[in-house]
């Protein structure tokens, strides 16, 4: 008897190469199966018609003109934050501190609005807000970068911990500036004078959308066609290669995190000066983390990021519409979003690997 080969029934093989068409088929199948699973879970749990649930999700994001604008504005903000994180991720610097960088930018803007409102003309206040919030975000981003460059500290930990410091700083100033006393809320800043409110361009939603467009195009050019962008890519591929060809890795890390933080600060400026007109610890609403997902899903491609951020906002907006229309708990909508994201992220596995079934060696193994 020859020796029995103990080969598992299935095993995983890395795909050597996959063409675009095949990858997209996998993605479409993933989304369809996600929707199917959502439909089944919806029917089993609530007895509601899944088709009407999906229709409601769509209506929640694009049902009225206002809803469409709001959706686009949300997409814009998430997109800016995702774009901000992208160069850092591309050079394999795990910046999970977007949340804190956004908050610091927002806090700087709010500080200008509150303390300078009756001292300087509106235009000067706005100018200062722009400068300080971008600067604040950049500083918050560069601190972990300096530590990384100088002492090779773990940037995942330090950027993450910088988030908590930023949150607590905002919490502290919320108490300092709270109105009325003891309420723990700042409320709309300069509600009647509108000092420091970023100007409306066309309507109140358009400004963020324009900024996002500019940042997207700028980031695409920066990453693809500039020397900086190339350096980021080389550092991301291999720091040793970068050193070998004479790129100063430390310099690239610091420079890139300055940029990353600055754009996060810009998002904070928009959130505080252009959208909410207040500052709270939850103003960035976890988007510093969601942005990581948006960026990864799009494979760091700024144009693809438009679609991934749209997908996430679309699901979120649709989800809250479900809870209104069907009087379901918000958690149900979160379950649906979770399922869809799970499939979308999961399908990347099948794009990179394939499962190979064992070829039966003989009848006895069947």
């Amino acid at each position, binding site marked *: 008897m020859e020796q029995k080969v103990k080969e598992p029934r299935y095993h995983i093989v890395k795909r050597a190469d996959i063409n675009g068409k095949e990858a997209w088929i996998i993605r479409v199948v993933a989304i369809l199966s996600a929707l199917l699973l959502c439909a089944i879970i919806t029917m089993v749990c609530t007895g509601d018609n899944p088709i009407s649930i999906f229709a409601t999700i769509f209506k929640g994001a694009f049902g009225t003109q206002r809803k469409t604008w709001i959706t686009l504005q949300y997409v814009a903000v998430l997109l800016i934050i995702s774009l901000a994180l992208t160069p850092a991720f591309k050079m394999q610097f795990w910046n999970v501190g977007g949340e804190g960088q956004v908050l610091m930018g927002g806090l700087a803007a709010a500080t200008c609005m509150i303390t300078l409102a009756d001292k300087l003309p509106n235009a000067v206040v706005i100018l200062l807000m722009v400068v300080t919030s971008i600067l604040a975000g950049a500083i918050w981003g560069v601190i972990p970068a300096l530590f990384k460059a100088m002492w090779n500290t773990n940037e995942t930990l330090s950027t993450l911990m910088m988030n908590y410091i930023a949150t607590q700083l905002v*919490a502290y100033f919320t108490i300092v500036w709270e109105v009325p006393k*003891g309420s723990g809320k700042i409320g709309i800043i300069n509600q009647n004078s509108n000092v420091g409110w970023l100007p409306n361009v066309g309507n109140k939603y358009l400004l963020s959308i324009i900024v996002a467009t500019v940042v997207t195009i700028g980031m695409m050019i920066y990453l693809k066609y500039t020397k900086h962008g190339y350096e980021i890519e080389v550092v991301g591929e291999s720091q040793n290669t970068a050193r070998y060809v004479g790129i100063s890795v430390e310099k690239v890390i610091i420079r890139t995190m300055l940029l990353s933080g600055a754009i996060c600060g810009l998002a904070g400026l928009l959130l505080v000066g252009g959208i909410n007109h207040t500052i*709270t610890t939850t103003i960035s609403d976890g988007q510093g983390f969601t942005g990581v997902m948006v960026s990864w899903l799009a494979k760091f491609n700024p144009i693809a990021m438009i679609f991934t951020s749209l997908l996430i906002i679309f699901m979120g907006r649709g989800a809250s519409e479900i*809870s*209104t229309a069907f009087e379901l708990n918000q958690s149900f909508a979160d379950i649906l979003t979770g399922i869809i994201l799970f499939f979308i992220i999961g399908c990347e596995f099948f794009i990179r690997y394939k499962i190979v079934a064992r070829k039966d060696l003989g009848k006895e193994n069947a």
Partner: protein
Amino acid sequence: MKKIKKVLSAVLAATMVMSLVACSNETGTEKEAETASEATETEGAEQTAASDVKVGFIFLHDENSTYDLNFINGATEACKAAGVEYMFKTNIPEGQECYEAACELADAGCDIVFADSFGHEDYMIEAAKEYPEVQFCHATGTKAHTENLSNYHNAFATIYEGRYLAGIAAGMKLNEMIANGEITEDQTKIGYVGAYTYAEVISGYTSFFLGARSVCPSATMEVTFTGSWYDETAEKEGANKLIEDGCVLLSQHADSMGAPTACEKAGVPDVSYNGSTASACPNTFIVSSRIDWAPYFAYIIDSVANGKAIDTDWVGTLETGSVVLTDLGDAAAEGTADAIAEAEKAMNAGTLHVFDTTTFTVNGETLTSYMADVDTDADYTADTEVITDGYFAESGSEFRSAPYFDLQIDGISLLDTAY
């Protein structure tokens, strides 16, 4: 080939199940719609005008928060009773989202938009400016009387009266514990878990304390603050800290079950807020006070249906049915119900005032005059004389509906005032 067949049949089966459920569900909703319209018709016989009013509600959280659940119940009850259409938006944060939600509700044809959380106020005002024909009503807010918007309104209730009555129940319990020899008179220390050092909280614990002290003169109180309206862990920790500090009875002004469950675990009697906690805490629950918002919702629906103006500051009272106590728990002392009923009668008759200046002192002195910060501004300017006829006039509809009692009276010590 076999595999494909298998997959196909599975997909087919799934589709069939789906369509089946879809069909049965459609008939289900139709039925519901029918019964709903029937209900509207029968209601409509009495209240024809109300039926075409549509109300939109904005809630900070959903039914998992006792605070929002209290509003959701009131809203459902009032809208069903009036036979009007309504829309709920839950989990709306206190930011621009609130403005967007209010505008979306107005776009959807709501005649009244209501928001339940303090931080929603500024955003409701922004929406009210944009939709002058829609009525915007906001609970717990402070700005309606200074904004000069005819379609923006605040509402609150004299919950300090409810707290006072709940305080009487607490005092009775302390007396019972003394009589049973469980504690001595100098151990009658009450603990209180508050959210922020905000006037609403201060007014709440002070009235609760005054109620307790009116029956148990030796009572003192310690207050701790969590810095959040809803933080189960912090509330539980706060309660445990107070119990370790020697507090023999607890109450709270924060929205989670943190404090009541900590009390149940430690066997310390508890007066809860926003609804009965008897089912989760059967051994320690005494009573709970809450605001019933249904009368206010009925009032605003009726006002809009009949084209009447809504009060800028509406104050619900014991008499409007806005301030209510739950049934007494098993932990309540004997005779509590009678003592509460008596005090309630005196309050309604106007002979008993919660903040009677003869019953408390501030820094050892009796108050004769006090300027409160009634008009909200960033500098907390004290602007209104609120001592009238020997009592502190809290939540007067002539001033504003939300509480503004922010004095630190003797007998209450604050453990931390960071928030």
